[in-house]
């Protein structure tokens, strides 16, 4: 997804030595009992009944994302996602909104690097209606030049709103773009104005027939439904869709390992400089992902996290600092970004960030801090999985991105099992100078004076 809004931390607090030692939760992690079904046309259906509230979440995951944008069409997968809300074989434009919002539900979609997901939550007695609607837009779109161009303008506005307009939108865009040299992840999903302008109506049709096919889709249904009834409706609406003979194109490009630190300086409309670091980390399905998630939490989550405490509170070098383990299907990046306080130097901030990384490499974290990180991560996961919608997202992610839906029932236990030694090991393995990219993003105004760059 394109616009990860920076988390603004407004409360200034320090990490004091406390007599209170958090203990890791002994709670047994909840299991999601799900059915996993595959139709003969390759359409996969994951479903989990839960009758605690009369609602149902419906999601269709297409295994196609921004990395699959056609050549010189960066941003296309996302533009295409917008077109899926226009007219289909049997639906008028915006009808999906009427079928959901008008019955007390909601709907939306998102395009990520690896997947495009369409989702609805409706009162459970509308399940069949939405299955029909999703099948209808999988089977065919009614695009014309008029609605294509108007939607392309909407996406260009979205580009301006998320990349150009926020003071650090372009900074995040550049950091992602520069982090990869070969892999298509180097083309941020929002695309570019030139590539969006170059897109043609025919591209839409081609993209739909290439990727929107039953064997590239996973339907996830969670909530208040009867499994037998669901199976019958799925057969009725999705069973007759035919699977094309052509193979599904898949990105084959491998990102080469970094062989030495890479540095960039860029200028923008920002008032205060920003510093970004990225490290290449393995694919989301790699077991080190859990320890990297814990490292993210220790470094950056909450007012008592290490980076916040050192750089915001103690040294007062930065206004905000964010650590993010940005997991992806093929290869991931661990990103640290900081927006400087007035009058501070990027070089000093960079030095402090690296010092905090070194501490985690040199000294194992104490149990209390490790447990705090686990409690924060697991609680936030549990909160997300409380709703039908959140459980469906977790199930879809496990199936499509991790290749095994049952990961949803083991991932929290794996987080709980991470040790201090694991955290130290991944910090040493990935946070090396050879694997580092540094971006200094400076105010345009400082270019002439050359002042703040030192």
């Amino acid at each position, binding site marked *: 997804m394109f616009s990860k809004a920076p988390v603004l931390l407004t*409360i200034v*607090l*320090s990490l*004091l030595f*406390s007599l*209170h030692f*958090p203990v890791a*939760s*002994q*709670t*047994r*992690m*909840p299991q999601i009992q799900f059915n996993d079904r595959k139709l003969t046309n390759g359409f996969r259906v994951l479903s989990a009944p839960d009758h*605690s*509230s*009369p*609602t149902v979440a419906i999601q269709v995951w297409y295994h196609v994302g921004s990395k699959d944008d056609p*050549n010189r069409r960066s941003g296309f997968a996302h533009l295409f996602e917008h077109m899926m809300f226009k007219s289909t*074989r*049997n639906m008028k434009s915006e009808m999906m*909104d*009427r*079928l959901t*919002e008008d*019955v*007390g*539900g909601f709907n939306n979609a998102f395009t990520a690097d690896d997947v495009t997901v369409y989702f609805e*939550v*409706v*009162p*459970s*007695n*509308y399940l*069949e*209606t939405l299955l*029909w*609607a999703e*099948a209808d837009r999988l*089977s*065919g779109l009614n695009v014309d030049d008029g609605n294509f161009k108007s939607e392309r303008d909407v996406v260009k506005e979205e580009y301006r709103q998320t990349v150009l307009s926020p003071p650090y939108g372009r900074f995040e865009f550049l950091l992602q773009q520069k982090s990869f040299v070969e892999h298509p992840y180097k083309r941020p999903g929002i695309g570019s104005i030139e590539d969006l302008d170059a897109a043609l109506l025919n591209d839409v*049709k*081609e993209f739909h*027939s290439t990727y929107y*096919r039953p064997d590239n889709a996973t339907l996830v249904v969670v909530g208040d439904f009867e499994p037998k009834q669901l199976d019958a409706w799925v057969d009725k609406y999705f069973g007759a*869709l*035919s699977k*094309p003979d052509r193979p599904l*194109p898949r990105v084959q490009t491998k990102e080469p390992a970094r062989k030495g630190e890479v540095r960039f300086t860029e200028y923008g409309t920002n008032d205060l400089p920003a510093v970004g670091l990225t490290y290449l980390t393995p694919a989301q399905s790699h077991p080190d992902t859990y320890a990297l998630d814990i490292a993210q939490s220790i470094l950056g989550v909450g*007012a008592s996290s290490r980076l916040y405490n050192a750089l915001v509170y103690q040294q007062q070098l930065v206004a905000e600092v964010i650590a993010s383990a940005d997991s992806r299907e093929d290869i991931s990046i661990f990103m640290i970004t900081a927006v400087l306080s007035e009058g501070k130097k990027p070089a000093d901030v960079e030095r402090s960030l690296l010092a905090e990384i070194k501490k985690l490499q040199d000294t194992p974290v104490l149990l*209390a801090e490790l447990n*705090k990180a*686990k*409690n924060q*991560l697991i*609680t936030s996961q*549990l*909160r997300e*999985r*409380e*709703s039908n919608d959140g459980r469906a997202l977790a199930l879809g992610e496990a199936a499509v991105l991790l290749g095994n839906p049952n990961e949803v029932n083991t991932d929290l236990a794996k987080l709980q099992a991470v040790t201090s030694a694991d955290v130290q090991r991944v910090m040493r393995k990935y946070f090396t100078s050879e694997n580092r990219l540094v971006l200094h993003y400076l105010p345009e105004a400082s270019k002439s004076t050359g002042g703040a760059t030192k």
Partner: protein
Amino acid sequence: MIRFTKLLSVMLLMVAAVYGQTSPPPPSQPRSVEFPKPVEQLLPNGLRVIVVERHNTPLVTVSLVIKNGGEVDPPRLAGVADLTANLLTKGTTTRTATKIANEVESLGGMLNAVAQWDATSVSVEVMSDKLAPATAILADVVRRPTFKFDEIERLRQQYLDTVTLSLDEPSSIARFVGAKVLFGDDLYGHPILGTPESLKRIKQTDIVRMHRQYYRPDNAILVIGGDISSADSFNVAKRFFGDWIKPKTRIPAVPAAYQPDPQKKSRVVVIDKPDAGQAAVYLLRRGIDRKDADYYRGIVSNSVLSGYSGRLNQEIRIKRGLSYGAGSSLEARRGVGPYVASAQTKNESAVEVAGLLLGEVERLASAPPTDVELTPRKAVLIGEFSRNMEAVNGLVSRISSLALYGVSLDEINRYIESVQSVTPEDVRQFSSSRLDAKSSDIIIVGNSKAFLPELQKRFTNVEVIPSADLDLNTKDLRKKKSE
């Protein structure tokens, strides 16, 4: 990238598959669900403890509700209740603000304290095996806050910044002015975050008094919900709140609930804000209280007018493109709350939008909606309710609200059928007897040059107040010349 040429035939083939059904299948019968049944105990000190078990996720929400909020702000001291709530987490006799934040983060939780109308709530959500340590912190901040000077000053400054900012937005000005016009100096007439003037007047003693008078076990409800046993929960409640002493003094009587003045003339108030890019247009009138027998007829009537496909948005946004969104709300409180219909529009169309708000409220009073229109409007209410009940904090907040207003807790299992049972004629009757548009007040905040002459043609009683002269502390809304 591989290109394919046989596009058309593939498209047709796939389309044929579902061609048989060209319109969406209709909904089946609404499904009924049994929400968990809360159990309760009254502790000897008067604290009402309610527990609701739900075991699908190992989380627990603990919420302590004080049965008073912004409505007991003393005269001239708007904002005390919310400031008091916010200060609870900023230090106790045994924990500094830092320690509170660090301990809560270590448990993986979040602690929130906020005053609303009629209630103040302090709540925390954690994994269910952390019920006891989380409740310990919650009890500490509720019972032993220190209200330190420096924390008061820091928050006062934050509140002043927030309020000053909102006094530059036409829609917030309209809301504040509307409340003052409708409720005058009664309970709900002031901004709950205070005014710039009242915030400067608040002293530490006012905050301490607010806490001493209202934060007491016999004026509170503790609701614990989630993956816990009721026996454990009652034990935890007794352990951390059992020795909370009930003061010998009486709970101060809430000032007489708002009694509408039948002689009150409706007002049309314009706040002239020449730099406003858009005008905020508000229609307000008194609505209902929570125990009103017409509660369900009221919320269903409101839903016909409000929401994306509700009549107000249909007429104002969808048909005429006059606004990004128009809607209304019917807030049922302990006393009679407001009914508010509103939209933002360009300054030039302010009068047209005011006319549409009035016209739509009147139209609903003159003819019942059809079943075709009413059914989806009820579905919107039921859908929102049901989604809210998926998460345990939604369940807890719904139960807290029923308990606060003394409504039976069984109501969570009656909500859906109560909404379903409202008929088109019920809606018409409610609208004509309870939402009479003629007795509404109209507030417009915007650049009056663009709409005043037209407005004066339509209404004879237009009051115009330059935004620089606006004073939210008085009923006539004008700064005194001497000040």
